[in-house]
């Protein structure tokens, strides 16, 4: 669970890095170039399956654990407690589920289209690529979609905030000196990832 | 009078136990498998004995009243456990621990037993460390010691303020290991109702399952009673709510003699009583007396103002304070034994110098210690105790002195046992606080844990073999024998009788009344007329109980009121025996203080000529006066002196 989670986190960093290229180059050349590289490099292609497996593992484990956890308390309390010290820990299955739904829509919108559908090519000095960037820009012109996207990313951020330090705890990687640093880093990291992902649709919506 | 044989081995004091072990009978491994032992109680003595028997290969059945063996009241012991390791190099030795214990007990314990206790004390520490008990350590990695009342050396090992807990968890872990192995079978939430005696030997017990109310029969070749003390006869005590005297009382009525029933320890440092709804008293570890100074105002007018709330203790200047222990006992100061400290507090309060709203409290002050060592040192040493005090009293002991007052804590009396810890019923053994053996008329601090574990780990595993060695041809007992039928019938009848009274008053009402009689008339200071009065009052209260108690519900259910009623019915008989014993003993010794017998300075005045014996009471029948048998105490190796802590 924790290993899969940390692995997926590393994927987020790469994903965000490529996405941000849209903002730095309105011609979308950089982004399309990077997307092309990701779609054609054999190593990345192979890695895609590892990533897919990571997702599935993380989700299945999460669901199984949650079912076990629910059955561990067949009679609930009348007066619900709230003693949790890591606030978002309470909602991991909820944030996770919504992020999962988002993921399916996200897949349908981008991955499936890019992989199996047809995307108009665009030619730059450096060569001709599928204009995936245009697809992104068009989607984010839809206000409703932007709102959905922002909410999903916020939830992902909450998921990350608990998940990051939690993974270290589950792996037993704690230390009186370093654990506070890990916790602080996790929170800052989650905020940065969230802001980064949210910035893209907002910037596109308002200025493209 | 029955001639009581304590079966003390021959030879010089230091060689008695070695001699005993060298010549005792043993049971070979294949025979151990065929022998059953019942242990009642899972405290330090019970758990350690049961685990050891299991390790040796006996079939063991253990019974406890709690949901888990770990909840036994040994868990609440705070301060520490004594041993003659002499790690601090301050002059300790087995002999000195023995001597301090005998002297602390005011020369009313057996030399041979106490010497053995001191002798095995070191093994206990080794054993517990090997079990992973996290005793306090110094920076060099070696074990730390602190000092306790009644000793001039530091010989007390401790685990913060939770030594009893850690030692019990050690014994509990050993027990768990044996339960897992299958050599020990644990029966939780069972209360012993009767002892089964077949042809003069203890062969089984009748218990009540506290969940279903089912009455069960269990047989064995030997029965060990490790059921703790009976301090709850006073209603308010530091004992846990379920601690009770019923098991010892039942075996007394089956023929086991009761040793020194009146010897009760009143612990000097408890949180004072503060309301009539109160259910129990809380002990503040004796270790606090290492750094705390005990005082009351020197002038009555100050004390009166404090009681009215017009003056705070911190406003009383040094020269208007009376550090009465330091004044009266300069050599031991605040570390005098418990009985001495308790009586001194009572004396000051009776004389009108008491503090608190009731006037029944004295101060235990840490101001000097905090100045000398710093708050952090005091916090490290007693943090949890201070926190506990603040939770209960709502005052911060770092800023204002604690208020303390004596409270019933431990019963030195108990089932009479010989050197082998065997009672007058063959095959019935008693260990820990349940027996009377090692503390005489007063127990020193940190010695209860030592005795419980000594009995369980290092004494009973030897002596019980000596008994069982000639039982190897005795087959397992069926529980349909007439003796079992009869014992179960008696137990059932008593329960039915209690349920049938259907009067108007709750069990606790009677218990509270009994407690007041005991505290006022059979407490810290005892007088002939008062003890006689107590006997009559208890008899009357007993009659009233059996005609007016209300026990709701039925037997076949979880019924805590019925559990209490069974116990209180026994207390109402046991209390009378305690008063009788106190009346009979016309001297003051240790925790037993007869106002008529004191020195001019108000110290306990023993009468060695007439009372150097153990009172071993014998049951003679319902509503008949019990019979007093005497086991003379012979001091061959030490000189009996007036205790002096000045």
């Amino acid at each position: 669970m924790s290993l899969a989670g940390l692995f997926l986190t590393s994927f987020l960093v790469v994903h965000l890095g490529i996405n941000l290229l849209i903002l730095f180059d309105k011609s979308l050349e950089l982004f399309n170039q990077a997307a092309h590289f990701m779609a054609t490099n054999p190593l990345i292609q192979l890695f895609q399956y590892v990533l897919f497996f990571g997702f599935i593992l993380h989700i299945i484990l999460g669901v199984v654990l949650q079912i076990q956890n629910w059955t561990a308390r067949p009679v609930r309390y009348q007066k619900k407690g709230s003693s949790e010290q890591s606030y978002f820990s309470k909602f991991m299955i909820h944030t996770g589920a919504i992020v999962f739904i988002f993921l399916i829509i996200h897949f349908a919108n981008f991955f499936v289209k890019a992989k199996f559908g047809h995307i108009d090519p665009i030619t730059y000095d450096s060569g001709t690529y599928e204009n995936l960037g245009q697809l992104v820009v068009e989607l984010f012109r839809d206000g409703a979609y932007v709102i959905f996207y922002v909410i999903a990313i916020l939830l992902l951020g909450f998921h990350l905030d608990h998940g990051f330090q939690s993974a270290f705890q589950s792996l037993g990687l704690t230390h009186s000196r370093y654990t506070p640093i890990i916790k602080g880093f996790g929170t800052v990291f989650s905020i940065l990832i969230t802001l980064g992902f949210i910035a893209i649709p907002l910037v596109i919506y308002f200025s493209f | 009078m029955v001639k009581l044989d304590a079966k003390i081995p021959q030879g010089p004091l230091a060689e008695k136990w070695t001699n005993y072990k060298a010549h005792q009978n043993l049971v070979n491994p294949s025979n151990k498998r065929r022998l059953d032992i019942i242990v009642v109680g899972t405290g330090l003595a019970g758990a350690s004995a049961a685990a050891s028997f299991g390790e040796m290969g006996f079939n063991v059945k253990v019974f406890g009243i709690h949901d888990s063996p770990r909840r036994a009241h040994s868990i609440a012991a705070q301060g520490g456990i004594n041993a003659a390791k002499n790690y601090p190099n301050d002059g300790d030795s087995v002999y000195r621990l023995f001597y301090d214990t005998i002297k602390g007990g005011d020369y009313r314990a057996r030399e041979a037993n106490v010497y053995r206790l001191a002798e095995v004390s070191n093994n206990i520490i080794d054993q517990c460390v090997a079990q992973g008990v996290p005793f306090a350590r110094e920076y060099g990695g070696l074990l730390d010691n602190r000092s306790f009342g009644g000793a001039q050396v530091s010989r007390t090992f401790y685990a913060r303020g939770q030594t009893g807990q850690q030692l019990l968890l050690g014994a509990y872990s050993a027990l768990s290991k044996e339960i897992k192995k299958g050599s020990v079978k644990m029966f939780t939430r069972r209360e012993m109702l009767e002892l089964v005696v077949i042809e003069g030997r203890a062969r089984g017990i009748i218990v009540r399952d506290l969940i279903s109310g089912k009455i069960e029969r269990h047989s064995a070749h030997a029965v060990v009673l490790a059921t703790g003390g009976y301090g709850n006869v006073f209603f308010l005590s530091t004992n846990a709510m379920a601690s009770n005297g019923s098991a010892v009382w039942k075996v007394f009525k089956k023929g086991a003699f009761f040793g020194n029933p009146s010897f009760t320890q009143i612990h000097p440092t408890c949180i004072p009583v503060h309301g009539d709804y109160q259910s129990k008293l809380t002990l503040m570890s004796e270790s606090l007396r290492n750094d705390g100074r005990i005082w009351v105002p020197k002038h009555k007018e100050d004390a009166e103002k404090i009681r009215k709330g017009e003056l705070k203790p911190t406003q009383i200047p040094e020269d208007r304070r009376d550090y009465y222990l330091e004044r009266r006992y300069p050599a031991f100061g605040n570390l005098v034994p418990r009985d001495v400290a308790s009586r001194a507090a009572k004396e000051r309060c009776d004389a009108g110098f008491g503090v608190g709203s009731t006037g029944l409290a004295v101060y235990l002050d840490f101001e000097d210690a905090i100045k000398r060592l710093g708050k952090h040192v005091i916090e490290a040493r007693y943090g949890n105790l201070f926190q506990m005090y603040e939770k209960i009293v709502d005052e911060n002991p770092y800023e204002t002195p604690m208020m303390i007052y004596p409270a019933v804590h431990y019963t030195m009396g108990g089932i009479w046992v010989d050197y082998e810890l065997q009672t007058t019923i063959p095959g019935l053994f008693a260990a820990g606080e349940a027996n009377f053996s090692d503390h005489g008329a007063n127990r020193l601090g940190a010695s209860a844990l030592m005795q419980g574990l000594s009995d369980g780990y290092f004494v009973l595993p030897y002596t019980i073999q000596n008994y069982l060695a000639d039982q190897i041809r005795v087959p397992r007992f069926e529980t349909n024998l007439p003796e079992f039928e009869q014992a179960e019938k008696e137990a059932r009848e008593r329960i039915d009788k209690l349920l049938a009274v259907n009067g108007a008053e709750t069990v606790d009402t009677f218990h509270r009344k009994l407690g007041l009689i005991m505290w006022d008339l059979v407490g810290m200071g005892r007088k002939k007329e008062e003890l006689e009065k107590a006997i009559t009052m208890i008899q009357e209260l007993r009659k009233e109980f059996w005609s007016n108690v209300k026990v709701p519900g039925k037997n076949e259910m979880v019924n805590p009121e019925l559990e209490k009623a069974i116990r209180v019915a026994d207390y109402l008989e046991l209390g009378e025996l305690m008063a009788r014993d106190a009346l009979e003993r016309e001297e003051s010794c240790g925790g037993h203080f007869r106002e008529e017998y004191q020195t001019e300075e108000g110290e306990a005045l023993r009468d060695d000529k007439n009372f150097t014996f153990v009172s071993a009471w014998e049951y003679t029948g319902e509503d008949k006066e019990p019979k007093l048998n005497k086991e003379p105490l012979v001091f061959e190796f030490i000189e009996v002196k007036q205790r002096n802590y000045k």
Partner: protein
Amino acid sequence: MDLTLKIWRQASAGEKGKFVDYQVQNISTDASFLEMLDVLNERLVREGEDPVAFDHDCREGICGACSLYINGRPHGPDKGITTCQMHMRRFKDGETIVIEPWRAKPFPVIKDLMVDRTAFDEIIQAGGYVSINTGGVPDANAIPIPKRDADTAMDAAACIGCGACVAACKNASAMLFVSAKVSQFAVLPQGKIEARERVQNMVAKMDELGFGNCTNTYACEAECPKEISVSHIARMNREYLSAKLVSQKE
């Protein structure tokens, strides 16, 4: 002070339970929570009703018997104490207090507020000990132990086995309890010898008994009356992973 109590009543394990309201009057603010319940029970007995059953014994916060879930929190609103150490001055006059038993599948209700916690004993029996017999052990000072390690072991060993961690955890996980024992032995040389088998056996037993999983909510630490740290859970995780990785095939 006067209070309204909403108490879970259940005649026995097999029967259905429900909340029943009780009014109590003139409770002293100096009384403990359990003494307040004593007052109620004494009245119920006088009125011929069945008193409320609850576990309790030492009433000084060390035996671990008391186990009430008070207003949504195990052992009530104060930190670092058990129910028996909770005093009524902590509540307001006229307040309604909801009192429930510990809720977890491995802790079935016996009656009213009493639950069966023998699952904890079973976990200890799975390995919460050092497998030595009485006698024949080395001198207590033969193995020096760094003070820091002894203190850490003591921090963990302070567990009273009350089950508040399970009660507080949204997953009814027993990780804090199990890790306290595993951790105590993991830092002491005496316990190291069997450390690998111990952690695997105890965790397996815990899972078998139906406790939930740890999702690091840290509610256990917040509600533990002995304030045992979740760093012990991390230590157990570490011990467990390394034991799984390196232990030899049976």
